[in-house]
């Protein structure tokens, strides 16, 4: 067992667990976005930042990837953490305001405005779909391509993958889309996961293709 303090409370947790696991186990809430139980930690969204160390040595780390250490002092709601967290939420909101998941996080942390140029990204590069496909579906049909501004998710050469099992797992976990198509026939495609009533692909004028990165969609095969 490893002894550490979280928000001033002395606790001991199992060796090898992450700060996030320890904090959640003890009931300290930490918001996460790219973290999901059953998938390997990735540290992409930075939403789960906490502060460790003291005085000049204090620093922000992503709790989902940081293993607990003996004697560590963790603060999950310090001023610095809150400031960083707000900023990250604002940035997420700016890049993908249509996401129900991000909206929910923003409202929970009382972020009502953001000060950046609004984009409507259809992907925030959280990597959940890639890990889902590889680790749970053991398909490895999609992955990251390119870098920087042009980084994107998709199949190699953008052609329909022959290892994809059409399970829809990638869409299910996607925080940017959340459309969770439950049918494979286009005319029955109903996106039930979010507040939008119509599947965006069936209502192209209204949504364009901003809601779904699948091109072509592995589940519904609607050509966009």
């Amino acid at each position, binding site marked *: 067992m490893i002894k550490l303090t979280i928000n001033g409370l002395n606790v001991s947790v199992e060796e090898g667990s992450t700060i996030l696991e320890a904090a959640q186990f003890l009931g300290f809430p930490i918001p996460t976005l790219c973290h999901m139980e059953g998938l390997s930690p990735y540290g992409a969204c930075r939403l789960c930042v906490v502060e460790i160390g003291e005085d000049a040595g204090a620093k922000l780390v992503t709790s989902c990837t940081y293993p607990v250490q003996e004697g560590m002092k963790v603060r999950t709601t310090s001023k610095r953490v809150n400031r960083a967290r707000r900023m990250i939420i604002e940035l997420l909101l700016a890049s993908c305001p249509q996401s129900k998941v991000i909206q929910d996080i923003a409202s929970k942390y009382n972020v009502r405005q953001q000060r950046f140029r609004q984009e409507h990204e259809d992907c925030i590069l959280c990597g959940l779909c890639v890990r889902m496909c590889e680790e749970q579906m053991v398909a*490895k*049909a999609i*992955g*990251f*391509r390119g870098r920087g501004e042009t980084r994107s998710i998709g199949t*190699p*050469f953008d052609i329909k993958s022959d290892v994809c099992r059409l399970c829809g797992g990638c869409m299910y976990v996607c925080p940017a889309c959340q459309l969770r198509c439950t049918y494979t026939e286009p005319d029955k495609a109903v996106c039930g996961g979010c507040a939008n009533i119509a599947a965006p692909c069936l209502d192209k004028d209204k949504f364009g293709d901003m809601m779904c990165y699948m091109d072509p969609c592995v589940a519904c095969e609607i050509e966009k």
Partner: protein
Amino acid sequence: MNPEVVHNILEKHQQSQDGLISILEDIQRSFGYLPSQALQQVAEESGRNLVDIYGVATFYKSFSLKPRGKHLISVCLGTACHVRGAPSIAEEFEKSLKIEAGETTEDQEFTLETVNCLGACALGPVVVVDGHYFPNVKRTAVAEIIAKTREGIDKIEVKTDQRVFPIEVSCPRCNHSLMDTMNLVDGHPCITVTASFNRKHGRLSMSCLYGSYNIASEHVIPPDIVLNLFCPHCHAELSGGANCAECGTPMVPMIVRSGGVVQVCPRRGCKGHLLDLSE
């Protein structure tokens, strides 16, 4: 695309347990780009996943998935070149060749790319065509560079290749002179840089006579070792040159004081070099 070639490349790397990047580099060297069938073949034969291979191939700018032209024109847009007007030079190339950066002309002659620092800031704005450096390029020189390339850029060096004459060089990064008047090699002031290999670091003095390969080194350099050379003033690594025509090792560029660039192969025993003098 010849599957045999890819197969041989994979075979070669299997033994040395080399990583994916070396394999892709070799494929790109053989075909000039990464054909999609080749990537497929790498996936099948090496047991790697195509998703990973495609991810790496699209991540690095030096890999191209599209066929490239016969001549590669790289315009540096690094900070130093940028402030000296490199964007307008890139634009001029785009206009003259009627393509955007990153594209290849229809006749497959030219590929234009912009790069983010060639490590030769003192030469800026610098343009590299098929490994030949063009320093202090002005907008008006663009047409001339294209014309020169068309008629065969390798003609430029032939003029000077056979002669033995002293050259004075400086670091392409900080522009400090690399000449060392205290030590003589071949009876001339030598070119002194810091060399490192196998975790050893030491002074390396090279003859400044173009055509002489005499050196004096602090440590004994075994044959075939590829040295890393550094500027003794700014400690920047001297790297980023064209691939040596003899052995393929990336060469080490240095500025010639009278105007131009000399590149030498850092592999011990290899005599590959390239000299571009600007008038």
